[in-house]
């Protein structure tokens, strides 16, 4: 999971740097240190996104649980509460 996020993020960062050089009509490998920087930033971004997704899923599950229990309290005595 971490490996995939790092690899994809680095590839994205490198692609962005290639695109930036290409659209400005510069040699694609001009200033190679910028490519390394972009790969590093991309890898960091990819990992951050992966962590954020896990965090968001947990928060959403908690939120939906809260909403469901609030609805159950409101509908006490109805068919819906009995079924659940």
């Amino acid at each position: 999971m971490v490996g995939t996020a790092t690899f994809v993020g680095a590839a994205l960062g490198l692609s962005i740097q290639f695109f930036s050089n290409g659209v400005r009509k510069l040699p694609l490998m001009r200033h190679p240190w910028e490519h390394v920087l972009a790969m590093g930033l991309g890898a960091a971004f990819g990992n951050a996104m992966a962590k954020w997704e896990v965090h968001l899923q947990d928060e959403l599950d908690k939120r939906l649980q809260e909403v469901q229990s609030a609805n159950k309290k409101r509908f006490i005595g109805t068919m819906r509460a009995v079924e659940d």
Partner: protein
Amino acid sequence: MIYGFTGVTNFEELAKIFTGYKITLFGAQSSGIFMGILFIAVGFLFKITAVPFHMWAPDVYEGSPTLVTAFFSIAPKISILANMVRVFIYSFYDPTWQQLFFFCSIASMILGALAAMAQNKVKRLLAYSSIGHVGYLFIGFSCGTIEGIQSLLIGVFIYVLMTINVFAIVLALRQNRFKYIADLGALAKTNPILAITLSITMFSYAGIPPLAGFCSKFYLFFAALGCGAYLLALIGVVTSVISCFYYIRFVKIMYFDTPKTWILYKPMDREKSLLLAITLFFITFFFLYPSPFFLVTHQMALSLCL
């Protein structure tokens, strides 16, 4: 007027007052409240350039400096839509406003699709395109469901990124007398990467899969189907097909037309190139990894509506 007739301005207090309260004109317990809400709605619709309050947009978009045009084709959409969700979904939730926003949505989609076909200037075309997109966004808003609000949030975010991309291109080309669509002739020969970028963005605007624009329209139309607004979804699909004409016209001019006078484009600066790259990669690869975005918009919709 709302404060005068209710005595409160707090959204929660207003929501409590209007729970089960008839706001229709002929059954209203207070026509003053109805008029107040109508004025608020009209003000928001003017600002967001929704039909029939869109008249100012093409002329202002064309006449303003491009940076200013870019700003107010992006920023007001976000702020006004967020504001409208708070006001009309949270406080004044009523089927009366749904009919008004259905009408505005249909009219905006139709006008945006048809009027843009006759445009030759880039900024005017983008103005009508934004009017059409407001129509699509109103599909999600007027559903009034959590899925509708989520699709609205998805649509707004994708629209913002597509618009940033297209205005970055317009700004990059602006230094070379770029005013008419025909000035794009042979861009594919002078700057092929920029031509591909603009092509992909136009395809995304047109809603061609698997780009981000298609995903946003997909969710908006499905939200409409989920709440029973079949006509809205049908008109949305038909106007999307019609709008393909003027979006793909860009591609045709760039790749198959030769301009009357050849324009040598100056190279763009690094910041614009990075902005273009980030937005282009988002538009192109959104369909591969949309889940964080869906999760955050789902949470936002739950927070706004519940």
